[in-house]
């Protein structure tokens, strides 16, 4: 086994998890006040998975994310103010407000990008990995997707090609028990998705997705494997969405007992308990304060930022020169 992350590493990830949680809770508040637009998907309860999957990446590694990408944005190092500005449709957003909540992308940070098409980003990550293989580089492409997305044809096709060509890629599946409102038992013929990896010539690994270190470790192993040229890994992180599907969710389908069970496994509480064995209470509180302040400042800035001018609609349909991450 490799060296475990240091207390400092964990504290940094803890702070990122807190940032994600605070951002989403604030977005939910603003939604109720009618200050958001379009659906917003929160990953409350899944922060250990999302941060654990992205924090171990190097800057030049790339991630294709989903409709539920806040943790990935933060873990990959995006500027929170610009993420929020995008969510609020401001011209200072990563996509100048054109993308919105599901289509945040930062080429400079290798977040390429959020995606509102379930399963849509997986073959794109495949292509990125293919590019890296051709380059002979040590970059890795990580496709993050949900248990629902794993039932899309794209996932299967991409797994086959990645396994066949031994591409430097990680399939990271956030198995949160639901695809929109439907429980996995109505969506998947098998309870554990990593078992499918065997059919595609790649290892499949399952981890407790609410255990930050477990996710982080599995991800590091997978990245090492990819960088060594040994090909892709399928990592399944078992986790849970502690809230509704999105801000427009009308609820009613997540049994209370299930909610209670998973609340007891809240990854933020667990990561705090872990850190408490390494840091004293005041250091922990400092981390928490810093996270809260970061979020507050980012919201304040983003919401004060201007909207794009309507004339920006006419921005060119086509690229005239190459631009790339």
């Amino acid at each position: 086994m490799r060296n475990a992350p240091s207390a400092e590493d964990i504290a940094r990830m803890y702070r990122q998890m807190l940032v994600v949680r605070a951002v989403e809770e604030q977005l939910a508040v603003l939604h109720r006040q009618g200050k958001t637009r379009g659906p917003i998907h929160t990953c409350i309860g899944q922060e250990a998975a999302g941060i654990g999957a992205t924090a171990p990446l190097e800057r030049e590694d790339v991630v294709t994310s989903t409709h539920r990408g806040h943790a990935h944005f933060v873990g990959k190092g995006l500027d929170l103010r610009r993420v929020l500005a995008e969510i609020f449709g401001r011209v200072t957003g990563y996509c100048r407000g054109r993308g919105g909540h599901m289509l945040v992308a930062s080429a400079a940070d290798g977040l390429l990008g959020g995606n509102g098409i379930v399963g849509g980003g997986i073959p794109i990550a495949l292509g990125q990995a293919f590019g890296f293989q051709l380059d002979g580089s040590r970059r890795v492409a990580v496709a993050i997707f949900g248990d629902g997305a794993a039932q899309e044809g794209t996932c299967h096709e991409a797994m086959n090609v990645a396994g066949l060509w031994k591409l430097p890629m990680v399939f990271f599946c956030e198995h949160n028990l639901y695809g929109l409102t439907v429980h996995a038992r109505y969506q998947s013929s098998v309870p554990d998705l990593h078992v499918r990896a065997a059919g595609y010539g790649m290892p499949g690994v399952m981890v407790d997705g609410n255990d930050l270190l477990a996710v982080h470790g599995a991800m590091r192993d997978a990245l090492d494997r990819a960088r060594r040229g040994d090909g892709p890994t399928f990592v399944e992180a078992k986790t849970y969405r502690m809230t509704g599907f999105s801000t427009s969710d009308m609820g009613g389908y997540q049994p209370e007992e299930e909610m209670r069970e998973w609340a007891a496994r809240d990854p933020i509480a667990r990561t705090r308990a872990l850190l408490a064995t390494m840091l004293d209470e005041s250091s922990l509180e400092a981390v928490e304060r810093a996270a809260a302040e970061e979020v507050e400042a980012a919201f304040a800035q983003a919401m004060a930022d201007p909207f794009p001018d309507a004339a920006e609609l006419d921005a060119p349909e086509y690229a005239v020169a190459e631009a790339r991450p």
Partner: protein
Amino acid sequence: MTRMRYAEALNRALHEEMARDERVCVIGEDVGIYGGVFKVTKGLRERFGDLRVRDTPISEQAMTGLAIGAAMVGRRPVLEIMYIDFLTLCLDQLVNQASIVHYIWAGQASLPFVLRTQGGAGAGAAAQHSKSLDALVAHVPGLKVVAPATPADASGLLVAAIRDPNPVVFLEHKLLYNTTGEVPEGDHVVPIGQAHVAREGTDITIVASSKMTLDALAAAETLAAEGIDAEVVDLRTLRPLDRETIARSVRKTNRALVVNEGWTTGGFGAELSAVIMEDAFDWLDGPVRRLGTADRPIPYSLPLEQAAVPDAAAITRAARLTLAG
């Protein structure tokens, strides 16, 4: 007559047809336990059971094939595809399979199924959840395509679609679900293939469908205040197109504006313009004008989205220009 929302009218039609004909079944993502993300399938699973009303995995390709196969052996499936943007995933099964069976097999089988979906912008749902891809299906021989604007037509056309022995793509609009209107009681059927003059007028014909019909009617009121008497033709069915009704109107008004929420270039508006060219050229006092969504991916930010997509004001302006043309 009962006043109800568009979504309720659809829901009622589904309840009635499922009760009337045991062969009707409903499949799709989140259509069962949750009752559909737009609540159109509400109460069906409780009433008709989880065999006839099935929550499916997120597998649009397979679901489209499933509808085809089930129809082929005698069922009358109604498949919900959550957003028209995902129709791209169904298109192979629609174009290469569903559309050819009746004709190529020389009548050996018919495929009585309905693919319900919803499109349109205006909800801040961004580039992957706001499109109007009617042009992609209206081009395909063997498919029927309907796009009702009112609760009454939604209900009557859905009944007709379910009873039709052909594959019918049924296009709803996310901003219409909460609009209300009177819906006739009893066995209310609106025949597929019949347009309808939603407002009579003498100065200009505005051809529209789905939500654009409501916007065109609103525009007609504004125009009326300016002394312009617009006739609004609500297509209701895009394929097979009721060329007769369009031609009759244009031959009367001598001016035409065609409005379609899809992208302008290569959109269904082009077909309407061509049809008027062919059927009413000699009656035209000026060129037919097209109004559609700007030829750009639909941006998220409010000012950009508003600028991109036609509304009543844009129709009003376009009508004035048409008369000046």
